[in-house]
């Protein structure tokens, strides 16, 4: 009896340990599945500023990004002009860039570039791209090119710029 009595608590303890292990395993597996998903979610909504791989820049402040996209900075270096590629309407990335970088409505954006050319401050407006694929291909091809792309759809051969020291998906990244 005594022996039997001793065995029962041991069996109960083993069952508890097994349950705990299973719960732990579930936790590990769930975390393993959710980690990439969480990373994806963090990038979701973020717009990456991308440049041609040979462009001599990797980190810009938001003010510098603004200066480039407003056509106020037109040269990366003496021999390398900035080639500005802007997504055509209607695209979510364009909406974010108009809101965060330009802080303009669509109408104000158009008027801004008409005025800029009329003032002889720029010889042409930004080039339009009509899809993420097109933006990916052109930025990787054109020296000095800069554009903005959905952070989840960045192609190979592009350099993703840090904005205010942050990459898309990181906390505090401004373009989202």
């Amino acid at each position, binding site marked *: 009896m005594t022996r039997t009595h001793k065995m029962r608590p041991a069996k109960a303890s*083993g069952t508890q340990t097994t349950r705990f292990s299973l719960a732990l*395993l579930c936790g590990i597996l769930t975390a393993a599945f959710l980690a990439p998903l969480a990373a994806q979610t963090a990038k979701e909504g973020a717009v990456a500023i991308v440049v041609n791989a040979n462009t001599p820049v990797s980190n810009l402040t938001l003010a510098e990004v603004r200066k480039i996209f407003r056509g106020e900075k037109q040269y990366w270096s003496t021999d390398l002009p900035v080639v500005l590629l802007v997504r055509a309407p209607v695209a979510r990335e364009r909406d974010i860039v108009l809101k965060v970088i330009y802080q303009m409505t669509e109408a104000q954006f158009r008027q801004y570039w*008409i005025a800029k*050319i009329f003032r002889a401050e720029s*010889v042409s407006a930004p080039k339009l791209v009509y899809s993420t694929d097109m933006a990916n291909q052109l930025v990787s*091809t054109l020296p000095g090119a800069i554009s903005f792309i959905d952070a989840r759809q960045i192609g190979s051969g592009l350099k993703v710029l840090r904005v205010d020291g942050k990459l898309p998906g990181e906390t505090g990244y401004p373009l989202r």
Partner: protein
Amino acid sequence: MRRFSFALIVLLCAAGTTGAQSAAPVDEHTETIKTLLARLEKVEKRLAELEARQPAAGAPAPAAEPFAGAQDKPGTQAAAVEKREPAGMTHAGMGQGAEPPPSTFPSLKLSGFADINFSATDEKNVNSGFNLGQFVLHAASPLSRKVSYFGEISFTATATGYNVDVERSIIRYDYNDHFKLSFGRYHTPVNYWNTAFHHGSWLQTTISRPEMIKFGGRLLPVHFIGLQAEGDIPSGGANLGYSFGVGNGRGSIISRGGDPGDVNNNRAWLVSLYSRPARLYGLQIGGSVYRDKITPGPGQRFNELISSAYLAWTRETPEILAEFANVHHSDVNTGRVFNTHAFYVQLAYRLPFTEKRWKPYYRFEYINRPTTEPVLGITGLLGSTAGMRYDISDYAALKAEYRNTKRGPGQPHINGLFLQTSFTF
């Protein structure tokens, strides 16, 4: 503890087979996540396709030619061709789909501005009625990667026909952002309005220009023929910029530039500085100094020094423009000195409703000229302008304004109603 470790190892090695009851929900989650991701992928693909078709519905017309950089990439070119609108002229200010390859320089782009006006005032001997404003053509053409040409021609209705004027004709060489050198006929950068709006009535909020910088006016030299260096000054967040010009200065008719040559063999020069602080996005402040010697008549010689300053907040909620200028003339023959000063303050606000198409505005302006001033031949001014701008479309506007002006002591107040439609094309 041993049992626990053993159980954990076994479970980790054979998680799928042992404890099947506990693993089942994980598998279900995994499947659900996979299914959702697959569906999300499909939706994104579909969205991308729809977005690619969107420009045909409402976007400004893109260029007819494909990207130069894409020409060696058949896939890219095909995509560009597929997603392009039908070929047609595009406004120079709108996005284009192409960087002209070197073999296609020059690449001329034309745009235009025009306005039609109605005016009615209680000023004696002035008729009310319609008038055709200015018809302006603007040309911009890159001649190479670093050389560009800009031109502006205006057609102004007169009693006997049209007066055609080359307002600007500039060729510019860009070395980099810090140094750009140009030659030609400019709107003198001695004033913000003069270089911000030029002859594009549609660009300016109001119908009329401020009196101090009106076309054909004599207070400030509107045009300048010569050379100009301009660029950014490395200054961090202050975003400083400069321009320095040397040119012929005023002509014998002082409201005109010395287009055919320098009337007194003395070059005018100007320096202007501005700042667009990064922390105050939308703000531009600046000032300039302009120096010339003018000969308004035989035997008359005056030194001219114009100093000016401005503040422009262009975000439209609100929009604030304010400028001040002092025109200093000293008679070389007698030593007498005259100072004429002028300023204006303009406020406007883009209203948030009805798609932000309404913009009420008000401007106060003032000019004080000494009565004995012998050069300018203008009157003083105390004026108020109040009006409303309505943007019919992104490229056309209707404006209505009321003006009340008084030209000097003892002069009557003049009231006027003005209407305008102005547009770009």
